[in-house]
């Protein structure tokens, strides 16, 4: 009941967002060049006849949702499908509109999508996500399927050239080499530091779980690393690391320096410690003491207990912590751009410096996409781990008698 009420509220909210977006009159902004103020074009003018098609789709969606929430038996998969259709239509129509608007303008002119467009996009995405929740038992797999298929359809449309007039698309495609390299760097940086954080955290949390004294120290370290703002930590490390690298050429040869990949990697690793250790410690602690005592009593050594009992039982919780850390690192990874650590942050800060909002938006969107994809991937891994170490399902029932 509660869930249904929630989804109804979300549906109406997203419908409202789409409507506001449609009527707001800020569908597209046309500029002579990058610097001058733009001209705002509303939905009807920008899309022309297509706006009626869009309105029709929007209407169908509205009717379906109203019927659905009134209890008419409609498979919510239709809501998803119409939502995806609306998403693709929005992107394609804006691409076509941009091409028309720029027809008689110079090559420096650019058309960027406006706030109205973003409202509609957010509304549609919210709708798709909520509708998936209603029928999918394996949400992650369905979401991934929808995401990938939508991506491939859009890519195909892009290859047809329909989107190339939208400034943000043009920005990315013009500098694709730069962007692709940045994405790869970003992934490398995030994954490398999260994995290092995982290794350190597992050792720290096991030690903390075994020894009360270490527990206190670990929680201080992990919390402190989280309290210092990322940016200032980067700044703080720059000087000592720079001095270290200068004093000991050996360290410099290993890649240690005040700027570049290493400080970014170090800081991001530090930031993964809290989410992973706190989850891992909770995972270890939640193991029923009866189970441990039984293991000891039957003659398992400390190492065997860790390998056969404590490890497997804590793994699902550790995986949750790792996912949190990884996603957080993808976001924080933008700051690596400030110290020459590479990644999408480099482009983002470049865009800020050159007052090129499209560059900023493009790199931010790509960061979000990377984070979402990794998140879905990690949830999938988590679920399979949980299935393997089934004990984590329904822990409360286990407690009753074991």
């Amino acid at each position, binding site marked *: 009941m509660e869930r249904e009420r929630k989804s109804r509220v979300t549906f109406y909210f997203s419908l409202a967002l789409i409507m506001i977006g449609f009527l707001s009159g800020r569908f597209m902004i046309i500029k002579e060049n990058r610097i001058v103020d733009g001209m705002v074009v509303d939905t009807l003018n920008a899309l022309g006849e297509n706006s009626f098609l869009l309105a029709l789709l929007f209407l169908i969606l509205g009717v379906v949702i109203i019927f659905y929430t009134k209890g008419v038996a409609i498979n919510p998969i239709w809501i998803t499908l119409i939502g995806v259709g609306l998403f693709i239509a929005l992107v394609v129509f804006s691409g076509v509109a941009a091409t028309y608007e720029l027809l008689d303008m110079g090559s420096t002119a650019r058309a960027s999508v406006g706030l109205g467009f973003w409202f509609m996009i957010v509304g549609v995405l919210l709708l798709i996500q909520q509708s998936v929740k209603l029928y999918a038992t394996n949400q992650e797999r369905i979401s991934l399927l929808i995401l990938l298929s939508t991506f491939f359809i859009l890519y195909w449309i892009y290859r047809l050239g329909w989107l190339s007039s939208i400034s943000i698309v043009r920005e990315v495609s013009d500098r694709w080499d730069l962007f692709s390299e940045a994405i790869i760097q970003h992934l490398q940086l995030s994954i490398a530091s999260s994995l290092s954080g995982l290794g350190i955290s597992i050792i720290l949390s096991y030690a903390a779980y075994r020894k009360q004294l270490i527990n206190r120290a670990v929680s201080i370290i992990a919390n402190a690393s989280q309290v210092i703002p990322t940016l200032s930590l980067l700044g703080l490390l720059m000087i000592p690391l720079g001095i270290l690298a200068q004093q000991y050429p050996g360290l410099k040869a290993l890649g240690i320096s005040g700027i570049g990949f290493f400080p970014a990697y170090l800081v991001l690793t530090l930031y993964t410690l809290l989410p992973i250790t706190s989850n891992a410690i909770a995972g270890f602690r939640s193991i029923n003491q*009866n*189970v441990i005592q039984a*293991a000891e009593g*039957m003659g398992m050594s400390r190492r065997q207990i860790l390998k056969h009992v404590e490890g497997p039982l804590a793994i699902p919780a550790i995986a949750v912590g790792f996912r949190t850390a990884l996603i957080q690192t993808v976001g924080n990874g933008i700051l690596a751009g400030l110290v020459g650590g590479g990644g999408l942050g480099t482009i983002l800060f470049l865009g800020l410096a050159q007052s090129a909002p499209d560059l900023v938006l493009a790199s931010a969107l790509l960061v979000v996409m990377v984070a979402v994809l990794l998140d879905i991937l990690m949830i999938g891994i988590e679920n399979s781990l949980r299935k393997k170490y*089934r*004990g984590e399902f329904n822990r409360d029932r*286990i407690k009753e008698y074991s």
Partner: protein
Amino acid sequence: MIELKNIHKSYGEKKAINGINLTFLEGEICIVLGPSGCGKSTMLKLINRLLVPDQGEISIHGREISSFQIDTLRRSIGYSIQGVGLFPHMTVSENIGIVPTIMKWKKDKIEDRVTELLELVGLTDHYREKYPIHLSGGEAQRVGVARSLAADPEILLMDEPFGALDPINRRRLQQEFLKIQSKLHKTVIFVTHDVGEAVRMADKLVLMKDGQIVDQGSPFSMIDKADQIITTFTGSNYAFELLEKRKISDLIHELMPLKPTTHNIAIHSKEEENQTEQEFSDEMSLKEALVAMIIKGSSELVVNASEGRYLLEFGVLAKAIRRGEYE
């Protein structure tokens, strides 16, 4: 044979075990009975070295336990605790096979052993691949017992193993355990605070209170001292529970034989004739017989044994426990 000599163990200020001397014989079920906090669980943990005594000596077959390698010692002692402690991430067969696995037995040997043990504790083979959360309390407990027997230990330590079960399941498991024991003849040290359980299962009974042994002996031999002590510290009536250790068939030579026909009015009074409908099996325990008398409101029961029909009188029943004392 396990010997405890002058054992002391404290947790900080609190004395959990205060000078215990005790011998457990091979092949015997020794029940240690006492209220919560009397130190009985501590005593078990001292035997498999989960705890170390402050003072005193524990030996198995005359060899001091601290001279064994700790894992070897523990693997030769089955340990079964209240709440089972099954590994929730392992299937039933993995749970049972864990000790053989860490002892590096061959795979097919482990599988055979699991099959054998499942059969022993009365579970069918399709339980193998189940996970603990899919088991009922009784089933989980059986798996727990099977697991403690996996490496065929000589000694079994059982710490209120059936404590979490409902009375019906508990009784069933007690009976099945006795059946298993009659085949395996392990040295069992079984800790409980349930007087009924203690009386039903004990070859030897040890009473503990405040870290000391109050009394020990066969269940019948303890009736005089035990009754006051046990009743005061457990609230259960010892003598009444003892009735369950005897069946009507044990008294068969003291019962009055009846003529085989049920409708012989000449011998029986009119009242008895009305009740001839209800006859009781000689497999009944004396406790059940007493309860039946109370329910019927009669001091006599008609017993149907294989040798014929008998009359059980209350007087015979009342003397039965005292007689058991000298057996």
